[in-house]
C-alpha cells in the first residue's frame, strides 16, 4: 500500500511570497490532516478534512493560510503572504480509523 505522498519536499521563498504544498493521502482514507512542525517541537494541527469538508480549522491562521480538498482526495495548503515564522515542516497525514499515517513533509524556509 502506497503511503502519503507530498510535494515539494523542500521550498525556499522570500517573505511576502506565496507558496503551495500538495498532499495525496493513502487510498481509501477519508480523513486528511495538515500539521505544522517547527524545529524541536511536535506537530501542531492546522486543519482536518473529512472527505471534502472541513472538520476543524480552528488553528489555521486564516488571514494567510488556506487549504482545500475539492474532490475528497488530494489536498493543497497555501500560504500567502509568507512570514519568517512560517519556516517549518508541513506534514500531511491521513486516516481511515483511529491511526494517522504521515507523509514525509515539505520543509519550508522563509528568508
Amino acid at each position, binding site marked *: 500500500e502506497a503511503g502519503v505522498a507530498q510535494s515539494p519536499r523542500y521550498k525556499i521563498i522570500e517573505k511576502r511570497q506565496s507558496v503551495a504544498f500538495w498532499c495525496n493521502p493513502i487510498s481509501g482514507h477519508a480523513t486528511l490532516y495538515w500539521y505544522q512542525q517547527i524545529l524541536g517541537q*511536535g506537530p501542531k*494541527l492546522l486543519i482536518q478534512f473529512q472527505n471534502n469538508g472541513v472538520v476543524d480549522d480552528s488553528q489555521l491562521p486564516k488571514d494567510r493560510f488556506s487549504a482545500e480538498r475539492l474532490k475528497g482526495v488530494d489536498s493543497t495548503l497555501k500560504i500567502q503572504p509568507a512570514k519568517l515564522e512560517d519556516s517549518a515542516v508541513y506534514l500531511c497525514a491521513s486516516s481511515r480509523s*483511529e*491511526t*494517522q499515517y*504521515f*507523509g514525509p513533509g515539505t520543509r519550508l524556509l522563509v528568508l
Partner: protein
Amino acid sequence: QQPVQSPQAVILREGEDAVINCSSSKALYSVHWYRQKHGEAPIFLMILLKGGEQKGHDKISASFNEKKQQSSLYLTASQLSYSGTYFCGTIYGGSQGNLIFGKGTKLSVKP
C-alpha cells in the same frame, strides 16, 4: 492542552533499556506513540485506548495507567535503529478529538 513528555533526551548504549513518559493533567481518550527520524515522517508505533492497557511488539511496548492520565513507552535491549525522537500524541474527550503532540523525547543509541 499539550501533554508533558519526559525525559527531553536520553543517550543509551546498544542493549540498554529506556522508558519515556507522557503525562496529562486530565483524563485522556487515547494515547498515540510515534517515532520520527531526522528529516523523515513520524512513524506510528502504537495506540492505547483503555485504562490499564499494555501492548507492544518486538521489544517496544507501552502502558496506559488506570486513570488514563499517563502513558509510558518501554524500549528494551535497544538497537541503533531505535534512535530518533519519540512523540506521544493525546486525544481528549472522544474519538473525534484532535491529536495533540508533546514536545518529544530525543533518543540516541550508541554502539
